[in-house]
């Protein structure tokens, strides 16, 4: 991704939430949106990673093709950005909706993947264990782990 695209990714993912709106608020710099976007791309198929990039371009150029305005998404006022995203999420085209949803999923991964933000959602129930408590924990030894820098057992033994 180019530096332009990285900046766009942050702009777009941040815009799913509005500063100062009632409900969940996010402090500046609290969430690593770009990190989540990069990890999503890295972990996806080549086609899906390409789709994420296309989604980004689709949103960045949406003022032009959706609103008929000269300028990019980043040039819009903050509130307009959020409204535009909401519009894309309910667009009549399946492809547009799915690409916008992919970005929303990435934003949600970034937001809820941040422990301090997650703590403010009240999702976690104190009855649910956070730490490993089971007595019968299993650590399965694998050949790769045992022999990453040596020979597998059968050959080593021969």
């Amino acid at each position, binding site marked *: 991704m180019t530096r332009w695209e990285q900046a766009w990714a942050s702009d777009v993912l941040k815009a*799913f939430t509005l500063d100062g709106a009632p409900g969940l608020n996010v402090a500046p710099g609290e969430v690593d949106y770009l990190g989540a976007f990069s990890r999503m791309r890295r972990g996806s198929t080549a086609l899906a990673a390409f789709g994420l990039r296309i989604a980004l371009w689709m949103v960045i150029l949406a003022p032009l093709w959706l609103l008929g305005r000269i300028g990019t998404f980043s040039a819009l006022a903050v509130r307009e950005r959020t409204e535009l995203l909401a519009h894309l999420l309910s667009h009549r085209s399946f492809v547009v909706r799915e690409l916008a949803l992919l970005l929303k999923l990435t934003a949600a991964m970034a937001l809820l993947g941040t422990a301090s933000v997650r703590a403010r959602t009240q999702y976690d129930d104190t009855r649910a264990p956070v730490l490993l408590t089971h007595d019968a924990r299993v650590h399965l030894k694998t050949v790769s782990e045992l022999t990453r820098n040596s020979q597998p057992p059968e050959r080593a033994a021969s």
Partner: protein
Amino acid sequence: MKQLDDAADFIIVGSGAGGATAARVLSAAGCSVVVLEEGPALSPDQRSRALLPAMDEAVRDMATIATSGRTPIPLLMGRCVGGSTAVNSGIIWRMPEDVQEDLRVHHGLDELLEPHALERCFEAIEADLGVAEVRDEIMGGNAQLLRDGSQALGLSGQPIRRNARGCKGSARCLQGCPTGARQSMDVSYLPVAVSHGARIHALTRAKRVLFEGGRAVGVSAEQLDASTKKPIAKLTLRARRGVILAAGAIFTPVLLLRSGLSGRVGHGFQAHPGSAVVGRFERPVGMGYGATQAYEVPLRARGYKLESLALPPELLAARLPGAGAQWQSYLSRLDQFAQFCAVHRAQARGRVRLGTFGGLDVRYELTPADVERVKESVALLTRIMFAAGAVEVYPGVAGVPERLTDPAQAELLLGPNVRRDAFHMLASHHFGTAAAGGDPRHSVVSPRLETHAVRGLYVMDASALPTNLGVNPQHSIMAIVRRAAEQLANAERPARSAA
């Protein structure tokens, strides 16, 4: 690049329900076994609570592999030691009688599915994995609402039977059980196999099956770097008695095709596509506590099963409508939401084949009848959600209001303008791409799960099931593999293996 070799009586590709069961049975019978798994070995304390790293580590391509029809459906598959059993909800269902009958009568699987033998396999697996109904104390608020709502509409449901010993209700099955309670293959059958001498090569991707004289004699593979997933070594794994493919109904046919097999390989792909409905309640639901899936309403005659499904907060957030202030108000009270899903026994049949540049192409389109059933199930879930007390329901269906506030609005979901592309779906159960059968013209493997085309090459996963089941497939996969692996272990060794 470094070259490594290994050898065993059996080389097994895949460590999920099929591969781990084969490894357990064959190693216990005194056979030497090597298991290849493309993903890493993750102990319970290495499983992340946050969804992004959890999926990156354990889910194949983060579920971004999708069918290639007009409206793609993402395919969820595990890629870690334990396979999909390490990311599923541990739901255990015996193969339904009507499916058994169909497979015996129409596919020639009388011997594989001999009723007494199958019963013995089911019982043994259930004992091994501690299968039991979800206890009341870990039912969780989400499942209780499905129970209450379905009962209010006169539908008969039940607590789900799961393979979890001492489940603490972490609601983290997808991310990986943090307590090791769920008896996925990495904490149950594979440790037993290892205790019998099996060796597991994690982070090892099978490339193709090797043949000599019309017989499978090994697998060429590559070892992957844990962080970059790039190849760091080549492996040649020699099989003295056989190669067993258990890479799932998507990647087993890919391996067969890359190894030069053809015929019916990849044909007959079937799935259980799922759709879901979210509801908001005025009081806390507590989706973050309880068994991830704890209550179900089987509606087999209608072609689907309803289930409670507690979503990780990341997926729940993405599933809630809108952006901006309204969305943020939802996010501040994620404890007030419930989600139910419908899993469909779709009639559609597709095909897995190699795509351009050696990639993957999964052709699959729901039939019009399937789409009607999806509409019906989502409308029913909406009514159940209201009957349980929801103040708003979010069906997630394009062309229908994002927020429904009255049960009568469920009718909107049945309208003629609601088409297939209005729904978001996901398919986690895949079948039929190397089907078993007595007739080589219509199947890929024999009733003993050995390929018709090549001796010593076996398919032991859901690829071999000729049809979808309408119920969660892990138990059926394990039972048929247990049966076939026992037959294999008892078979006379080829003369050359003694050399």
